[in-house]
């Protein structure tokens, strides 16, 4: 049993009358990467803000590295590194000046800080950007500086809020390489929020949130295996009419998401030939896959994440 870096018990939060988080309990093992995933309004950012000491804990308890976040926020702050959704760099300062400013706010002595900056600029491939103004960096580069900034004081926990939002696919791949590096070399526990299920799947563990509640928690592979069976995705012409007819034909529920019919079956290999035969000329493509976290979300909430998130998935 690995010790927990983050331990949350019965945590709740409300903004006025609106309940953002209800009776949430979870623990994040030391040295793991952990994703809080869910649609907008699921409570993941509220949880992030409570853990990062930006919101005051009123209901329940949260511990980071054994420290009570409500009672010892200043000690907690020294243990955590934070990567915000919106860049927190001063655009008028250079990359190096941004890092130096941050390091000094965390009380690092100048010699140790200089060493640390050189080291992190190297790790994140930023050596030749050290004298560039932060305002002139691309989104991907700025994100790297942001992460380097969060790691300066060698935190044992790194909290990241939607860290890949606004990054192009190359920068996202890059980001995940650095997250692994951070976990393996730093070594730090990484807790991040995302609304993208495929990103959550890259983490060691996930907590799926919906409407402020924890709906599933565990290793992505275990959660997907619990769903079992196969998922068939069908692209077809006249899809709403097709959805009804396929549902009748198979006697199963058919969901439509992003223009694709989604059907859960026990054994896909048996169903696909029947389906293709029954609807000649109507099907443009058929694919088969094992259940993933999107299917876990569907099973636990009865909704497709694509519907819950809305327009946000359009570019994903």
């Amino acid at each position, binding site marked *: 049993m690995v010790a927990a870096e983050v331990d949350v018990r019965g945590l709740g939060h409300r*903004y006025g009358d609106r309940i953002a988080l209800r009776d949430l309990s979870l623990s994040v093992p030391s040295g793991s990467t952990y994703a809080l995933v869910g649609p907008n309004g699921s409570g993941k950012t509220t949880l992030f803000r409570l853990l*990062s*000491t*930006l*919101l*005051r804990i009123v209901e329940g308890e949260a511990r980071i590295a054994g420290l009570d976040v409500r009672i010892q926020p*200043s*000690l907690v*702050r*020294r*243990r955590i590194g*934070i990567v*915000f959704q*919106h*860049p*927190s*760099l*001063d*655009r*008028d*300062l250079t990359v190096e*000046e941004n890092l130096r*400013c*941050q390091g*000094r*706010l*965390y*009380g690092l002595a100048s010699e140790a800080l200089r060493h640390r900056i050189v080291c992190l600029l190297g790790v994140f491939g930023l050596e030749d950007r050290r004298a560039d103004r932060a305002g002139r960096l691309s989104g991907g580069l700025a994100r790297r500086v942001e992460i380097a*900034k969060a790691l300066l004081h*060698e935190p*044992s926990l790194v909290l990241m809020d939607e860290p890949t939002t606004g990054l192009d696919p190359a920068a996202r791949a890059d980001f995940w390489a650095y997250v692994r590096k951070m976990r393996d070399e730093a070594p730090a526990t990484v807790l991040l929020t995302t609304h993208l299920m495929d990103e959550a799947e890259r983490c060691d563990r996930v907590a799926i949130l919906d409407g402020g509640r924890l709906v599933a928690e565990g290793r992505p592979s275990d959660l997907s295996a619990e769903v079992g069976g196969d998922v068939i995705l069908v692209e077809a012409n006249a899809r709403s009419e097709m959805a009804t007819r396929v549902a009748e034909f198979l006697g199963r529920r058919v969901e439509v998401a992003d223009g694709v019919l989604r059907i859960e079956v026990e054994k896909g290999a048996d169903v696909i030939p029947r389906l293709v035969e029954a609807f000649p000329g109507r099907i443009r493509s058929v694919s088969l896959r094992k259940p993933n976290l999107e299917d876990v979300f569907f099973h636990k909430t009865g909704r497709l994440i694509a519907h819950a998130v809305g327009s946000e998935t359009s570019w994903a």
Partner: protein
Amino acid sequence: MGVSDTTPAGREAATVLSSAVVLAGRELRVFARQRSRIAGALLTPVVFWLLLGAGLRASFRPPGVPADLSYPEYFLPGVVLMIVLFTSIFSTISVIEDRKSGFLQAVLAAPVPRGGIVLGKVAGGSLVAVLQAGLFLALAPFAGISLSAAGAAAALCVLLVTAMGLTSLGFLLAWRVESTQAFHAIMNLFLMPMWLLSGAFFPSTGANGWVRGVMTANPMTYGLAALRRSLYWGDPARAGEVPSWTLSLGVLALFSIIMFVGAKIACERIRHSDS
């Protein structure tokens, strides 16, 4: 990782100071990079002083001011006050910008006492203001003021205390206001009367009843009085009939302390209501 369990008062004070130094340093560095801002901040007052000084030279004969004091000479400390007023207050717009850019959030999540954040901002903005006002003060000999070393030093100290109070006032407002436009609108409401009715343009000795009352209540009247007394360090009579040293410094210090404490309280409160 060397983290102690409690933070004793001495260490807390040291953290407040060191974080304030970091944040003020950042403020100065950013200012030094904005060349157009520096030029604008220096040229505007010079133009103002030249135009109004020349235009009102002949018409200016108020009571309570030495007879041989020309208007450009009378007006010069007023322009210095204007520089400090505007630069101090508008330097705190960066609080709103920092909140929008996300920089402030990162500072709030750092192990920095709230007092350090306020002090850093206030000290940074005040130093920028005093720096600019100091440069303008170099024109004093052209207005016929022979500035002694002691007088200049006293003037800079007075300006620093005034600037600290004003940046705190700006911070207090910027902390609550959402947009820079709203900040401009509200601040102009404060700034103009604070400047016009401080004795910068005309002495209170020649003003009628209610204007005189407002001038007596305006903390900037005392800032300007202290400034005039500093500039005429060896020749107090030339400062004219302005409040005494004791009264001026007392009001000025009180104003600055109240504003600073107010800003600190505002800064500590935000966490409860933040969403």
